[in-house]
């Protein structure tokens, strides 16, 4: 009998050529940074687009420099048309949801830190890892290309609801080539995410070093594992939906198109399909996607709050259980995005209950974070500030969710700015705070230099106050009935609320400008920042046992052995208040 070969250790040697080292690299650390910069690019473009739409909302006739060159039809003379407003909104949403919130927390930080934190030399499938990134890169190229094709990006929004997204260019700008590119982009993104998810799960299961039991993993690793499982199960459905959408558009099928559809006076040659089918498939992906964006943030926040409170995470096992139950429940609630679709009240009830149940694990996790901080010896680093800020924006945004979870309220609120305020706060801002906390925390390890803390705090305070100024008023004008998705409100009943819009636009421009402090800090510190020690935050996990930045194989050929839990803070041992996971086993520490 031939015994099973051991094929897990990857003894690839460090590459020397520029291309293999920085471009087509199989090193998880380089790929993590590639994903990170892909997200930085996307968030920059997405932010500029949000400025443009916010400016247009308040000053519909303003000339925006350069816009007329980018799209002579969409913005003749630099004045945005209502259609072009929707086109830019589509790109903003798609970029932010897919290429920022899905890539940076999971594929960016996860790729960088997961293998080191579990004591592995690399991911389980390094070549597949490289492939995931480049497929995602192609997806981004396809999406950005929509800005430059004739008619511009599709006007159908990031959710691409049919019939609008499926009928073709008769229905409006961007629904020809732009929508095709969108479908290709998202299908490619699904493939990249699926390959990445598979890699994360195998890595976590198979490559943990000696002594790294599941319950000794840092919560970040748990969060990445659970997110990977959600990705694996949900992107597969979106992939199928994109294929069907592509066929409807290009092969004449009618999966999402009913009979007798008149579009701009032209009878469409389709019959037998259902627009609701897309909504089911899309939201079966779409709701887990919300947690794909936020759960890595949960992991990072649990992690940094413990490090900077010098206390063990309160209720480690409970947090793991809550993340697992949130992950499970996220697959049972997709219908709460479809309360307006005319579903049976019984179905609405069925989807409403698990939606409300999700607030229980989410609340428990939030309280455990407060409990972790309570009584700690807090160190107010920028990372910690964003960690605390995360709790604030997550809870604030989450409260709005309890309104929207009830069909009776949602039927009124769904089409208003309340929803915009809610999901930007709870999914967008909270996840971005998680990314900022992660950036300020791991930057020393990733680039071998420290970020400037003073600039970091200025960045934090402007951002923290700014996001409340942008997104809190949206809740209130939503309650007043201000509808979303409109490009401007001229001479109508909404006029009295326009000063609030002006305020939010100014807040958005200011908060956006403050992000340049971050970008400057990031790129300046990369080359000019103070040299980072191996363990600047006096943290316990494995990435802080290796040099900053770590060598190609992470541990310099050594195999770490773990003897302690991930959060042994608040102890007294050898003059330190923490025990590294890899410290040699000894007497239980006195606390």
């Amino acid at each position, binding site marked *: 009998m*031939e015994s*099973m070969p051991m*094929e897990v250790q990857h003894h690839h040697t460090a590459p020397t050529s520029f291309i293999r080292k920085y471009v087509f690299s199989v090193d998880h650390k380089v790929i993590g940074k590639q994903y990170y910069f892909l997200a930085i690019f996307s968030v920059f473009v997405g932010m500029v687009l949000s400025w443009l739409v916010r400016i247009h909302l308040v000053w519909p006739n303003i000339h925006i420099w350069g816009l007329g060159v980018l799209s002579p039809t969409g913005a003749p003379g630099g004045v945005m048309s209502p259609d072009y407003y929707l086109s830019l909104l589509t790109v903003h949403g798609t970029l932010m949801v897919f290429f920022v919130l899905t890539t940076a927390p999971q594929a960016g930080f996860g790729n960088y830190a997961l293998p080191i934190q579990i004591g592995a030399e690399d991911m389980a499938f390094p070549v597949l890892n490289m492939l995931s990134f480049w497929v995602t890169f192609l997806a981004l190229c396809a999406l950005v290309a929509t800005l430059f094709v004739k008619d511009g990006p599709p006007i159908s929004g990031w959710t691409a609801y049919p019939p609008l997204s499926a009928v073709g260019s008769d229905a409006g700008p961007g629904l020809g080539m732009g929508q095709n590119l969108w479908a290709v982009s998202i299908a490619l993104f699904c493939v990249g995410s699926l390959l990445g998810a598979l890699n994360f799960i195998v890595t976590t*299961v198979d490559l943990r070093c000696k002594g790294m039991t599941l319950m000794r993993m840092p919560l970040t690793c748990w969060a990445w594992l659970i997110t990977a499982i959600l990705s694996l199960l949900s992107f*597969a459905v979106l992939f199928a939906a994109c294929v069907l959408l592509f*066929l409807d558009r290009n092969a004449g099928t009618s999966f999402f198109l009913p009979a007798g559809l008149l579009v701009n006076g032209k009878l469409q040659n389709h019959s*037998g399909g259902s627009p609701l089918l897309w909504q089911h498939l899309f939201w079966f992906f779409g709701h887990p996607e919300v947690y794909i964006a936020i759960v890595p943030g949960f992991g990072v926040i649990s992690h940094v709050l413990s490090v900077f409170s010098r206390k063990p995470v309160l209720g480690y096992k409970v947090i793991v259980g809550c993340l697992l139950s949130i992950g499970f429940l996220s697959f049972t609630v997709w219908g709460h995005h479809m309360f307006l679709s005319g579903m049976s009240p019984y179905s609405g009830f069925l989807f409403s209950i698990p939606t409300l149940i999700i607030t229980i694990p989410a609340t428990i996790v939030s309280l455990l974070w407060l409990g972790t901080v309570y009584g700690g010896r807090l160190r107010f680093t920028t990372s910690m500030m964003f960690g605390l800020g995360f709790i604030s924006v997550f809870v604030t945004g989450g409260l709005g969710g309890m309104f929207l979870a009830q069909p009776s309220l949602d039927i009124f609120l769904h089409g208003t700015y309340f929803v915009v305020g809610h999901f930007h706060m709870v999914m967008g801002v909270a996840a971005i705070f998680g990314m900022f906390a992660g950036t300020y925390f791991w930057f020393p390890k990733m680039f071998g230099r420290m970020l400037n803390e003073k600039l970091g705090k200025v960045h934090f305070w402007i951002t923290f106050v700014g996001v409340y100024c942008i997104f809190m008023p949206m809740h209130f004008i939503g309650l007043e009935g201000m509808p979303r998705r409109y490009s401007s409100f001229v001479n109508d009943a909404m006029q009295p609320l326009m000063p609030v819009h002006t305020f939010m636009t100014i807040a958005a421009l200011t908060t956006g400008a403050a992000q340049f402090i971050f970008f400057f800090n990031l790129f300046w510190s990369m080359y000019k920042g103070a040299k980072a020690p191996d363990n600047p935050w006096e943290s316990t996990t494995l990435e802080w046992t290796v040099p900053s930045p770590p060598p190609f194989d992470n541990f310099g050929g050594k195999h770490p052995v773990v*003897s302690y839990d991930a959060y042994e803070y608040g102890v007294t041992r050898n003059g330190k208040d923490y025990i590294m996971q890899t410290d040699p086993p000894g007497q*239980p520490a006195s606390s």
Partner: protein
Amino acid sequence: MSHSSGPLSATAVHDGRDLPVWGGGALPYAVPSKKLGMWLFIVSDAITFSAVIFAYGYLRLAAPAWPRPFETASIVNATVMTFVLLSSSVAMVLAVRASSLGKVSGAVGWLVATALGGVIFDILHIREWLGLIAEGVRPFSNPWGTPMFGAAFFTMTGLHMIHVTIGVVYLLIIAVGFGRRKLSAVDVEVSGLYWHFVDLVWMFIFPLVYLLSAKMA
């Protein structure tokens, strides 16, 4: 199949407590990474197929009428295709067995036989597609009304046919690699997982697409 005794049996003493600690580095559940990776791929691919099958069921149930055009000859053809595909799965089992026993030429032979089954399946399937196309079936219309019939048929069987074709190429690559002793028995077994999965999907498509649309006497 033999599983090495596995590092799970190890226990280690850490900070005064006895903890079940596997040896680290490899095979915590005696599943090689490649095999686990393939299982996870199969999970996600099964969900993609499920979504398409769900779409088919959703639209078919909503349609006032759905064509049942498949004559006995079509059903016989599809049954032969099913038989060929299932036989190729048997050949795959024998390939995995031969490879785990270290019988290189036997494993390569069975792998090629499996791939051949896939090729025959594809040929029979394409012949049938061409027949239906000649009858006027298109993704957007067909002679029996309810245009979605053609859309669902071509999408589901086409997606499956792509999987079979990729599988044939995959099996031949594995056969060459194993023949040259560049690949291990695990690689053969992993390719087998994929092949059996593709067969299993057909066992859903055959009744849902063909038998449910067989012409009633």
